[in-house]
């Protein structure tokens, strides 16, 4: 089980990690500033296994791969949104972080809810309710299964 951190539509990558932090030498130093302008407590409250749940168009804007990287570094298990901006989506898979499309979840969960995700079955459980979520295209699932693009290319 993990906790839900809920975000609205059109969250851009500048909000996930602002440009002034991109030059910190490591992702671990950057991650303390994740979502700073939207929820300054996020980085201190999120625990490994928690979930980011969002409305449409999550991760729009700049191509910065640091955006999914800081979420992964904080232990976010998956981002589940109604839709994703394409560069964020590809970047997430390439660094080995699951990104799941669910048209329903955002509307039925609140901040702080507990939920569980079964990636293989494509199933989300919140309380006593279950929701189906979209599975990844085969090419992407393969990269994700191998732990990201680097591991995949090294095979």
């Amino acid at each position: 089980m993990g906790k839900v951190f809920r975000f609205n539509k059109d969250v851009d990558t500048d909000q996930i990690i602002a440009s002034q932090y991109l030059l910190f030498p490591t992702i671990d130093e950057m991650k303390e500033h994740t979502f700073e302008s939207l929820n300054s407590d996020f980085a201190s409250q999120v625990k490994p296994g928690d979930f980011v749940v969002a409305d449409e168009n999550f991760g729009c804007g700049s191509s910065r791969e640091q955006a999914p990287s800081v979420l992964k570094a904080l232990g976010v298990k998956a981002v589940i949104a109604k839709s994703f901006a394409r560069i964020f989506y590809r970047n997430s898979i390439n660094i080995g972080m699951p990104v799941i499309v669910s048209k329903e979840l955002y509307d039925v969960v609140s901040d702080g809810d507990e939920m569980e995700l079964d990636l293989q079955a494509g199933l989300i459980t919140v309380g006593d309710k279950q929701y189906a979520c979209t599975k990844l295209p085969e090419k992407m699932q393969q990269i994700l299964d191998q732990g990201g693009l680097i591991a995949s290319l090294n095979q």
Partner: protein
Amino acid sequence: MGHTLIEKIIGKKVGHEVKPGDIVTVDVDWCMIDDIMAPFAVQKFHEMGFSKVYNPDKIVLIYDHFLPATQVDDSRHFRVADEFAEKYGIKSVHRTDGICHQLMTEAGYVKPGDIAFGTDSHTVTYGCVGAFSTGIGYTEMAGILGTGQLWIKVPETIKVEIDGTLSGNVTSKDIILRIIGDLTASGATYQAIEFTGSTVDSMSVASRMTMSNMSVEAGAKCGLFAPDEKTCDYCRIPYDDEMKALRGDDNATYSKVLQYRAEDFVPVCACPSLVDNIKPVSELKGTKVNQVFLGSCTNGRLEDLRTAATILKGKHVADYVKLIVTPASRKIYREALADGTLGILSDAGAIITTPGCGLCCGRGGGILSDDEVVVATNNRNFLGRMGTSKVKIYLASPATAAATAIAGEITEA
């Protein structure tokens, strides 16, 4: 069955017909890496264990976001990129020439029909010459540097037809802002946009560049214009049968068709803090501004500077307003210097900076504080983009920007 422009570009590259949804692996014509992402791409390249790049002549390194350096660690990025270029024989390194997305076509790299990827989301700009180009992350770029290939999904296409004549104070910036407003910030996600019609035909390549550049703000994978004689002049190639065939077929399948009359467009702004929050400039009149920014890969070209100079000639920016002008490239800077444009802007009180990304990425001169208002010709008005998260950014055309600088409040040209 006909094909859209993107289907033709990808189909030609892979040697067989493609349709939306197909996943294909393409050979990449051009890789563009900017100074921000260079050290990260280099690190991932080494983690992947490559010992050489696929083709050093197809890789272009461009320093623009950090130029000139404003923070202590910035120059490390130049150094890492320089060392990489030297080690792997990469000759195309632009250290002070301007913004990457301006240079990739201006300096003669990307041509119609090419496929290019860059480590910046505004890589979509090269759609202005009928090339397929889009932004990727640095890990993916490292993969291309080693293999020369990338897998892509063939996108569906939204066709945007614009016919007629624009009024004098309306520019291609007003058009693309309105289209983003209509499509919304996610309305074209994973899709290509193809711009057609008599209005588009009569536009300069520079004006088209503004629209391709901002197509990503509607989520698009690319924003394409079929090449014509103007394109081929700009790219210094012949307008031959191959070029003429690079256009969407009449019987191609589009996911959506948007039709506009040029006469219906008015000057608009994208209001804080969403790119699709579009309002006519006339409704915003009276909004006081602290600063005006004219520049970026969206609107830092010679025609943009000239438009502003025409409006600012013999006038002066309002007392408390800072007008910052940043030409997109050294070539543009030199041309604007030679034809008197920069002189007019300087006489009017503009602060003219070195070519580069400047204020657009929130690092160059002109950072703003809480509750300040800026009218800017670039492409994003996200929270915190040009200073604190309480800065209000209005995106506008160069004409609106110039008129606003004089009045000290948002004003139609």
